[in-house]
């Protein structure tokens, strides 16, 4: 994957660039807003990671400019502010996701992967299938090996999100934000509890496990780990 990183802090930049390159991605890095904007407008990147506070030209302005110029590539904004407004401002400017520093590399990687594979909304299938698991988004039904599974609304949403990102790692924070719309870190094991209930219904009675725990990162749903 070809990724652009605009980040002024050399340490964070090295951390992100090294991490992504280790996983086989091509990463262009720019330490200033102006140079970054030139790169963003020129190269065809699959994902752009842009720091919000930059010398010269700040991250929000870059996102607005490239969106105005018609660049559709997904943008992940990084920030050091524990900002309440920042997320909304970032999304309004045209960013697709938002990550507060400091972050675990696994979190960044999971989000970059999710952004790169984000399907256009119109193409989203009515029925999601992973192995012998099937979820009908219109009828709100779930079956595995043809056997009907009854889920609570929240379990349904959780499974739907996991299936839409099947084969990828989704982090605890991504689940909190996308399934429960919790944009804060709860001090209780909400995600763990709901995952374990979902597992009991989706996996327990069937031979093969579909919901896997990825140590230090999160969860992933798929036929093989």
């Amino acid at each position: 994957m070809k990724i652009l990183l605009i980040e002024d802090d050399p340490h964070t930049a090295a951390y992100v660039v090294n991490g992504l390159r280790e996983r086989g991605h091509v990463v262009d890095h720019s330490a200033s807003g102006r140079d970054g904007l030139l790169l963003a407008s020129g190269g065809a990147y699959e994902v752009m990671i842009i720091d919000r506070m930059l010398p010269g030209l700040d991250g929000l302005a870059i996102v607005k400019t490239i969106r105005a110029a018609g660049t559709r590539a997904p943008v992940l904004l990084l920030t050091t502010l524990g900002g309440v407004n920042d997320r909304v401002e970032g999304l309004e400017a045209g960013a697709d996701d938002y990550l507060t520093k400091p972050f675990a590399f696994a979190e960044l990687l999971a989000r970059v992967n999710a952004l790169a594979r984000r399907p256009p909304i119109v193409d989203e299938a009515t029925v999601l299938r992973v192995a012998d698991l099937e979820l009908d988004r219109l009828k709100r039904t779930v079956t595995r090996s043809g056997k009907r599974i009854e889920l609570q609304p929240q379990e349904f949403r959780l499974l739907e999100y996991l299936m839409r990102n099947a084969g990828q790692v989704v982090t605890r924070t991504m689940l909190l934000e996308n399934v429960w719309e919790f944009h804060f870190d709860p001090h209780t094991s909400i995600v763990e509890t709901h995952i374990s209930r979902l597992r009991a219904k989706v996996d327990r009675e069937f031979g093969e496990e579909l919901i896997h725990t990825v140590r230090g990162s999160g969860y992933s749903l798929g036929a093989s780990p």
Partner: protein
Amino acid sequence: MAPPHSFFRSTSFRLLAWYAAVFVASVAVLFLIVYWITITAFDDQLSDSVERETEVLVELYRSRGLNPLVRAIELRTVELRPPRRYYLLQDAAGKRIAGNLPPMKPLEGERILPVSSLLADRSAKPDDPADAYPIVAHGRLLENGGFLLVGESRYRAVTAREAIVQALAWGIAITVLLAAAGGAALGVGFLRRIEEINRTTRSIIDGDLGQRVPASGSGDEMDRLAKNLNAMLDRIQVLMESLKRVSDDIAHDLRTPLSRLRHQLEAARGKAPAGGEPVIEQSIVEVDAILETFSALLRISQIEAGARRAAFSEVSVEQIVSAVCDAYAPVAEDRRQQLKARLANVPPIHGDRELLTQMVANLIENSMHHCPAGVDITVGLAQEAGAPVLRVADTGPGIPAGERENVFRRFYRLEASRTTPGSGLGLALVKAVADLHGASIELSDNQPGLCVAIRFPAPTAARGRTVQTQR
């Protein structure tokens, strides 16, 4: 709080009403004095006039005798020229010799004759309007035992008095009108400037610190007040900005090295010598806890600064509470606690969905963390006096009455919970979010346990506030 304030309830109206009352009262006193002096002058003039005429006739009698006097009186009673006078000449036996008044008891000096005394004799001019008024009369006893009386109708004095009263009534009416109109003009102008100041301060309370009170440029007291308020606001803005800068600096300058530390620990995770891995894992957890405390502090500061209010929208508290309860119910169940939701239909409020969600979550987590297994946690939503009220009640150990005020302070922890995990910022954030929404918090005894009630403002009031902000 509902603007526009009724003019009649305003301070300026009260001041002006007093001013007008005092003004009208002093004009009335002035008019009374004028009235009294004029009326007295008229009566004095009348007395003088009849007394002089009496003197003239007595002099005539003394020098020329009775017959010329009788002729003079007869001549005068038929005279048409004003002032119209009344005469009476009677002999010692009380019989009338001449004049147009009926005989009466001979009394020296001045007296007032009522109108009825005239009815006996209407020979002269029966339709004269002066006949309808009392007479001021002067009597004199003559040397032959006879009695002479000259009178003059008070007609002119009375009509003059009526004219004066009418003029004064008009004068007072015009004074009242002028005082009211002038006062209203002054008052409305004054009130408009006060309202401008109120509007500005309200939008500042709503988080728009850039607002300033407009000055008219006249340099009067209101302008000086506006100038002082603006200077104070400049000062507050500088302080707020420096506070925000300090917070941002902490965020940037301390969080950056902490992030690096975290990155390095993460990078070291795979390369640690045998037995080192748990130490590194534990260190990452510790760093995350420090970073989280920073985030929570910054978040509370930002919420308290009120900037978030600009992004308020119509939100359903019911939906938020129900979603959070659904998320936490299985967690509580795993802890062998019971989370129940009793939600009534409440009207939507003006607020921030994300922050309200966190507030409800913090309240529920607070109860879950401080209560042992087996307790009931009840989340209630009700409408009381037109306003939504959220209650989170548990049957746990509760909070002693003396400590209840303190729990909303940052980093404050009850003695009993020092050993449980938590930053001591959860309830501080709850308070910040409630304040942002204009909601009040009450802690009470749930007997046993703790009941936290969040009372939101009535939705209409909240909506009224936005309309003003948008103006």
